[in-house]
């Protein structure tokens, strides 16, 4: 990795560690409330729920690289991104339960989190649909002559969609400040990248648009993610779009209705390899090799994150469901 790295304090690294652990526990809790929970009042329901366990370093690291006035937009695998961007986990959890206190008032669900107050422009469930939206946000920044940039996550599977193609080209001809970060987990639902993509090195797709071919990085290493994304955002502010890739993995299969690891031995085998590169362990190893006497810090983080998730859950469950008035409001502005 050629990028010059920032020197990061112990505090910062512990803070990131906390977030990785928090997000993982959040995802695990969602999993539990969906699959194990028996009490209907405490159950997460609905046909879609996409966990991102395994990809925390990519999500948290990239989001931490954003400035306050920068922007982030993504697809439906969005819980960790909301949390990393600073949205209260309580409100994120409440959205999982479809509660009025959720980030989208219970109307968006897990796939459609968003928090305007922190420039998190949402998760989107139509594969590729958010990519031009991100480009449009970047257009606004260029139009109004700021130096703010947009971070747009893209799944490896989404690269094959027309939305990506048209939006990437438009971003390039207009030299818009956007970093397209391919979250390459090597699979979309059950289709491997080699099965879906003629070009299996995502950054090479930049050539088709005359765009900067950004780096291809280890998405399990939050330091590498943070440093690279930060550098590319800065490049994008001045010069225009970049296409970069973080290699990562999803430990939980595609979504809740997913039986992938029952049915594809090759993917099961691959998973076990990636589990050895758990992003939490990668950062923990780095911390332990850099600093001494972390046990107390780590124990505190463990306790705090457990508590935060528990509080989020309690909050979500205690929150009111939306009512008829919510059902019919916000169809139009001012009507």
């Amino acid at each position: 990795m050629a990028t010059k790295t920032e020197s990061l304090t112990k505090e910062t690294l512990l803070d990131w560690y906390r977030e990785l652990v928090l997000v993982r526990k959040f995802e695990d809790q969602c999993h539990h409330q969906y699959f194990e929970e028996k009490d209907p009042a405490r159950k997460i329901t609905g046909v879609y729920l996409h966990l991102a366990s395994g990809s925390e370093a990519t999500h948290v690291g990239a989001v931490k690289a954003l400035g306050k006035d920068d922007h982030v937009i993504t697809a439906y695998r969005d819980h960790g991104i909301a949390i990393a961007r600073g949205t209260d986990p309580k409100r994120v959890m409440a959205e999982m339960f479809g509660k009025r206190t959720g980030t989208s008032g219970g109307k968006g669900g897990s796939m459609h989190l968003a928090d305007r107050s922190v420039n998190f422009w949402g998760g989107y469930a139509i594969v590729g649909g958010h990519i031009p939206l991100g480009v449009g946000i970047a257009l606004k920044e260029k139009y109004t002559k700021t130096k703010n940039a947009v971070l747009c996550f893209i799944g490896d599977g989404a690269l094959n969609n027309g939305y990506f193609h048209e939006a990437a080209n438009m971003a390039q001809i207009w030299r818009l400040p956007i970093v397209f970060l391919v979250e390459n987990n090597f699979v979309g639902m059950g289709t491997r990248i080699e099965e879906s993509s003629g070009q299996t090195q995502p950054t090479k797709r930049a050539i088709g648009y005359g765009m900067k071919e950004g780096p291809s990085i280890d998405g399990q290493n939050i330091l590498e993610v943070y440093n690279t994304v930060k550098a590319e955002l800065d490049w994008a502010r001045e010069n225009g779009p970049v296409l970069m890739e973080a290699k990562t993995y999803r430990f939980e299969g595609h979504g809740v209705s997913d039986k992938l690891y029952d049915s594809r031995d090759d993917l099961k085998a691959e998973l076990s390899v990636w589990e050895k590169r758990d992003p939490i362990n990668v950062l923990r190893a780095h911390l332990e090799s850099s600093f001494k006497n972390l046990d107390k810090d780590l124990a505190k983080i463990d306790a705090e994150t457990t508590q935060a998730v528990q509080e989020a859950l309690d909050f979500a469950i205690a929150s009111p469901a939306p009512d008829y008035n919510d059902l019919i409001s916000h169809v139009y502005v001012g009507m």
Partner: protein
Amino acid sequence: MSKNLSMRDALRSALHEEMLRDDRVFIMGEEVGRWNGTHKVTRGFFDEFGPERVRDTPISEMAIGGVAVGAAMAGLRPVAEMMTINFALLAFDAIINHAAKIHYMFNGQFTVPLVIRAATGWGNQATATHSHTPEPIWAHFPGLIVGCPSNAYDAKGMLKAAIRDDNPVLFTEVIALYPKPSQIPDDEYIIPIGKSDVKRQGDDVTLVAYGRGVEWALEAANILAKEDIQAEVIDVRWLRPLDMSAVLESFKKTNRCVIVEESLPMYSFGSEIAAQLQEAAFDYMDAPIKRVTAMDVPLPFAREIELMALPNASKVVKAVKEVL
């Protein structure tokens, strides 16, 4: 001889029989192969028929639509799966401006014997982007055939008809109906395109529906029967070509009609049925024709309010009482 099969398995058996019968028939779409199909309609097909005939595609709905059209023109008989009808919105041009126009535009030189299968329906907290039931929208356009079965038995016979037909067919399958069973005869049968069906007889009111609407209509009919109100339930089955003969015949007897659909209210299924009925059977109208539809909102995630927006049997009962 017959078997009890879920709609999922009835569809699977239709596909399976047609794949065996005609090797020009092949399947393409997202996750249809190695993943066994998102809705498991193609379970086991990849292993049985191999990757040439069961083709996993990238997430490329425009190309799934367009490539299938080209293959159909060239003599194959693709069954392209769109996973859900929501994603077919990305293939709108491929289906409407290509599949549905090519036979006409080139004066019959080419045919497009293509089936686009897509899961439809909502009520499962799939939210605004994933809860479309836009069959009527597609059926606006001539050149396309649009069908949506209401039960496993019809599903099998209709899908076989669709695959054998030389026109492009949009075939939607209500997700909530996939697990529901019918008795499926072992002997082959076909349900012809453009034929509606009387699902229940009655003299007091005509209920017109398709897809899941039929289920609500039948439920409502059972409730009404307890009060000695006999509803006739007509399943149009195909939104295009639309067969109004049974609807008209029934209406001339009952003089009252409620239309039931899972779709949105405006410019939709109920609009067309009501418009045709009042025109063709004006002299038989004893009451306004009512429509029971989804509420006119994008669909929300939260279960409580989503269910408020969904049609159901008691809404149908209420509407029937208004026209009696």
